[in-house]
């Protein structure tokens, strides 16, 4: 459903991403990992139509993206700045639902349900500036999930919460998205998370970012925070992604994995 063809972007003379090629199928969960400053947010903003990439094209369902595509939601890295301080959490989550043509009662009900899912039902009437960073982040996740977009873009969405909440939110996101058949592109620093959440892990190189690895994640059965992370396949994949992120090429040889620095 989403296709990036030679996507490049330069800020002034600074090249942030360089000829990124990527195809994402309907319903797929693709994690993008890469070192800080390699252009992950730039990539995401290009897809969302918030910046006009200086090179290449973004195709959604085969059509080039011009402006912000329909049926898309973004969870921004700067979640606190993307919430409206003059609105309660409930109103923040409900606002995009106006695009869905719902009346106030339905919007409030859907927003409350989403807040409940992220464990914030009790804070619905609170304003963003009355909340902790982690709570604000959960509100912005709730807002995106309530919207039920076809394509969900998430930029470091679980960075500000404790480990356990993070695991709960990972599972929640996967569950909600599978239920509605959403496609997800999730950006993360966390190699572990990328393997756990993704159907595929795409690794970007140091700046200017370009795709250096695209690994399918084949793990048996429904994912489970404890058991999945124990699997041999999980551990191997995590090591492979880790090496790619550090700029090393994995080399398969009869004795297992060897390392060769580029």
């Amino acid at each position, binding site marked *: 459903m989403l296709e990036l063809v030679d996507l490049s972007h330069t800020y002034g003379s600074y090249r942030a991403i360089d000829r990124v090629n990527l195809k994402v199928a309907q319903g797929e969960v693709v994690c993008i990992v890469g070192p800080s400053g390699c252009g992950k947010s730039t990539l995401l903003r290009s897809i969302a139509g918030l910046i006009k990439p200086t090179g290449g094209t973004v195709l959604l369902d085969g059509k080039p993206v011009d402006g*912000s595509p329909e049926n898309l*939601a973004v969870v921004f890295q700067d979640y606190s700045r993307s919430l*409206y301080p003059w609105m309660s959490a409930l109103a923040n989550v409900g606002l995009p639902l106006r695009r869905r043509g719902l009346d106030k009662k339905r919007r409030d009900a859907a927003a409350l349900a989403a807040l409940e899912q992220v464990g914030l039902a009790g804070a619905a009437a609170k304003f963003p500036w009355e909340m902790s960073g982690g709570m604000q982040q959960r509100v912005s996740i709730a807002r995106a999930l309530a919207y039920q977009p076809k394509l969900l873009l998430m930029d470091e969405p679980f960075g500000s919460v404790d480990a356990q909440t993070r695991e709960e939110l990972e599972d929640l996101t996967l569950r909600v998205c599978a239920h509605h058949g959403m496609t997800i592109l999730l950006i993360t620093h966390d190699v572990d998370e990328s393997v756990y959440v993704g159907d595929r892990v795409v690794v970007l190189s140091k700046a200017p970012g370009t795709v250096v690895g695209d690994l399918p994640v084949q793990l048996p059965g429904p994912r489970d925070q404890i058991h999945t992370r124990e699997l041999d396949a999980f551990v191997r994949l995590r090591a492979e992604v880790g090496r790619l992120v550090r700029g090393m090429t994995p080399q398969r040889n009869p004795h297992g994995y060897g390392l060769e620095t580029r």
Partner: protein
Amino acid sequence: MPKVNGASLLRGLIGTAGLLVVLEAAGRLGAWDTERLPLVSTVLLRAGELLTDPEFLVSARSSLTTWALALLVTIAIAVPAGLLLGMVKPAELAVRPLIEFLRPIPSVALIPLVILLYSETTHMRITVAVYAALWPVLINTIYGVRDVDPLAKETLRSFGFGPGSVAYRVVLPGAAPFIATGIRLAASVAIVLVVTSELIAGGIEGIGVYITIAASGNRLDLMIGATILVGLFGILVNALLVAGENRLFRWHRARAGAAT
């Protein structure tokens, strides 16, 4: 936003009362000729009496109407213009020099010109007041629009909202605290300019006209009494608007407070 608390209000009242008592005592002890410049107590008494004096009330109502209309016209012009100039950078760049040229021209200096242009005194007074009151609203609105977080706008855009919705749902509420401050400043400026234009250009009704007539009758008690009432009205309006801002824009103060 300045916040008045009970203690500072009390101290202000004590200071004012003290000064008035000293002036009253000085007058009574013969510091000046109280036949010409009346005592504090006389003036305050007159001010109180003016509130039920039909002749004064007709003038006050006229001035109040002029002021309210001037403020409405100011808001109707300056807020949309400020939103436009704040959002459309090229438009702002194009009119910036004009604004910088027009803004320092004192409104009072325009009164002779405006008298020639208008036969109707109310229109003339409104024009003079609007000219002066426009700037704080316009400049604050432009500034407020600039202050709106770009990411807040992008968020709504990413959900597929058009530019009109973004302006209405993010830019306007985000800039509202600044617009409100501009309107509060404009309200004070408009009071000054309405009375000034009445004093300078004359007419049949208006507090400025009332003061001029009192002066020609050598009634300093009435002049000062009326002036005090204008000042009190200004304080009242300002206090009401500050209270309104504190109530409506709690989120803005919270955010500004967190940033410092």
